[in-house]
């Protein structure tokens, strides 16, 4: 942890070189991240040091690869799976889907509904625990996340509360990573990439993440998930595995369970209550 002398004038100047080089330990990295969120002076410092790191490749040693490597590369096109994505065992969920493959469309829809309900109810319970005082009711927003070529089977949703300051991400079928890597959520706005947090997935590829954002989540234009070193990175560096956009015209309303409508008061809580144990046991089995 940094000492008082390292934090002169409440800035984190002495830690910024290490932050740019990504060699701080987790508490230091968190400290710098939090400080950078509201300090333009240190943000400018960081840009200067990032320029150094981004150009260190100019001084990297060079060496000629063996002559046959180029032909092998061109012959191997197209793709292969990165080796740090570990082999994933078939899950109960997958086996269930497989056994019910004749009804795949219906079960895919049912699965999505379960994920949506679980995500919404999770967020609602989480908010209720954090804020007992009632907030103005409104619509939850649900963003569908889709896998890229790196994780073509992955699915997920990001549910944000009406205020946009909290959200919950639920993903499924993301490849499990080795211990030195985690997934990191990025909040996208033009060239800006804000970290939404890091998470890991179960051996079956299920994971979730609670997202807090000082800026309303609905002000971002999109969301992405990349593979990063464990603990996360200051900016995205690894493979993008999932993404989702937030076009205003395509927002899917999801009524808050707190809202006094017949549907939310009577149907959704009871449905959620019935589905939750089944879904949780399914997740625990993975």
């Amino acid at each position, binding site marked *: 942890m940094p000492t008082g002398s390292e934090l002169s004038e409440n800035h984190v100047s002495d830690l910024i070189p290490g932050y740019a080089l990504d060699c701080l330990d987790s508490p230091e990295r968190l400290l710098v991240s939090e400080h950078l969120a509201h300090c333009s002076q240190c943000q400018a410092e960081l840009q200067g040091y990032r320029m150094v790191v981004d*150009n260190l490749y100019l001084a990297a040693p*060079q060496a000629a690869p063996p002559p046959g490597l180029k032909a092998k590369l061109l012959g191997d096109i197209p793709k292969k799976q990165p080796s740090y994505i570990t082999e994933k065992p078939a899950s109960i969920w997958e086996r269930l889907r497989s056994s019910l493959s004749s009804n795949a469309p219906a079960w895919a829809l049912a699965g999505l509904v379960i994920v949506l309900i679980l995500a919404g109810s999770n967020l609602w319970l989480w908010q209720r625990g954090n804020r007992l005082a009632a907030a103005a009711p409104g619509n939850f927003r649900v963003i569908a996340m889709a896998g890229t070529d790196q994780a073509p089977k992955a699915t997920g949703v990001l549910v944000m509360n009406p205020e946009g300051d909290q959200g919950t991400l639920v993903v499924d079928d993301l490849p499990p990573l080795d211990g030195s890597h985690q997934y990191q959520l990025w909040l996208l706005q033009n060239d800006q990439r804000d970290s939404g947090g890091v998470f890991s997935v179960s051996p079956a590829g299920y994971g979730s993440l609670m997202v807090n954002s000082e800026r309303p989540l609905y002000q971002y234009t999109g969301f992405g998930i990349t593979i990063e070193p464990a603990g996360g990175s200051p900016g995205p560096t690894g493979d993008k595995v999932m993404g989702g956009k937030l076009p205003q015209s395509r927002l899917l309303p999801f009524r808050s369970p707190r809202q006094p409508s017949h549907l939310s008061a009577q149907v959704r809580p009871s449905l959620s209550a019935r589905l939750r144990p089944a879904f949780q046991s399914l997740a625990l089995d993975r």
Partner: protein
Amino acid sequence: MDFKKIDDGQLIQWIARSNSDALSELYDRYSRLVFGVALNTIGDQAVAEEITQDVFMRVWERAGTYQAEYGKVAGWVASIARNRAIDVYRHRQSSSEARSTSLDDLLDFDPPDSQDVEREVELGSQRQRLRQALFELPKEQRQALALAYFRGYSHDEVAKALGEPLGTVKTRIRLGMQKLRQIFDEENG
């Protein structure tokens, strides 16, 4: 199309359209850099070859995601190479596949007097100045920077690798980065 006459950015656009001749040209331009980074990090010729192939395969698959505003193509390719080499290094460490290597032999930047004229013209004077600046740093600072950059080591890991106190390593890295930053600011300011 003579790909030797087009710039890196255009080359990437052709690769994004699955033009293998464009990938071939990019390989000619940057395979030495990629292979050098991999070999410097891993210290194993065969593994460095695999990494090099994997890096260009990733360029082939992800050329459409390259955005020029984030930096030059060379830097983008180098960052993929560095990240991939660090990933492989960590994986080998965790599975005890790595052979012991000498830090003095492996982890350093390219000394200024090792360059050939052709490459220097190609990559420009900034490369020369950066390498000169790096080799004006005390060896201890340069070595700590090399461990953090090439192997992705944390302060603590660098300290353990060098057998030095954590505070000493933090100071070395900070002073080294500050010196390089000063040189960049002078050139750009």
